[in-house]
């Protein structure tokens, strides 16, 4: 049976597992979970203190769709990737930073997608985009559920937001079946 709903309780272990696997494998840093936040107003944004974000859509042909975004402060980004590359990088628009954050987002998204697909979804792989801007916010402009998870790592802080929106096709299916929303 296809699963139609994902709760905060479903998402938390998935996101924590994804962040932990990527950070510990790539950077030998074990993230420490700080807090989670949920919002459902429109436009919703519970991201904060971000200077760089990687965003990838969660797309499939039915039920839910959404976005995974992974955000870092400037200091965290320079610490984390500067140490990895073994050089001092001071610009967020440096190609090594943009590619690195895009790829980190890709890996975290890949694990979240896999775990959700094990629950019956059919999310596909899509391409990341990276947004740069001091203390920017990412707004979700349609109704849905926004779940944010904040972590502390040795290099600083990062947050992951999963936004989920009930797809139009699913609403039409329920209406034609006479099911109340």
């Amino acid at each position, binding site marked *: 049976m296809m699963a139609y709903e994902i709760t905060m309780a479903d998402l938390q272990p998935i996101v924590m597992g994804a962040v932990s696997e990527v950070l510990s494998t790539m950077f030998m840093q074990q993230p420490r979970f700080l807090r989670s936040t949920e919002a459902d107003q429109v436009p919703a944004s519970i991201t904060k203190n971000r200077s760089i974000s990687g965003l990838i859509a969660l797309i499939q042909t039915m039920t839910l769709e959404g976005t995974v975004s992974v955000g870092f402060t400037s200091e965290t980004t320079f610490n984390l990737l500067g140490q990895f590359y073994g050089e001092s990088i001071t610009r967020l628009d440096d190609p*090594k930073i943009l*590619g690195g954050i895009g790829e980190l987002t890709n890996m975290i998204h890949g694990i979240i997608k896999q775990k959700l697909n094990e629950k019956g979804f059919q999310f596909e792989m899509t*391409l990341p985009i990276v947004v740069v801007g001091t203390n920017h916010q990412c707004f979700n402009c349609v109704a849905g559920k926004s779940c944010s998870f904040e972590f502390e790592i040795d290099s600083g802080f990062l947050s992951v937001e999963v936004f989920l929106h009930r797809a139009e096709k699913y609403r039409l299916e329920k209406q034609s079946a006479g099911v109340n929303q």
Partner: protein
Amino acid sequence: MSFNKEEMEFLICDDLPLIRQLLASSLRANGYKKIEEAEDGKSGLEKIAKKAESGKPYTIVFMDWMMPVMTGLDVIKACRSDPKLKDTLFIMVTAERDQKNIVQALSSGVKDYIIKPFNAAILNQKIERVMGIAPKGVTK
């Protein structure tokens, strides 16, 4: 079967410096020394062809899936259709975990695949498996 790590030659074909750096440092940590890099599929194919012409083809080519100019799958297909390059050993490097896409990669002729994120130990297990000195099923 045994192999001389110092004689093995690798090509890393990936558009992302993060992954090239991770692969190169993981190879060096495992004692491999001869490592070359390509930033896109087209230049990767050119390097594979040039190396094969020299009579000493790469031992293993690590190939990204999604790349500009020419995708990893396109490079592999081009090699498979060229008699001089058809025996090139490829390991696909990808963040894709869906079985259907992995099956597609394997059916295109890659010897094995490695899912990001990975570390030096995981990479070495893959190399040993591809070289025939580790049993199947020991890596993730």
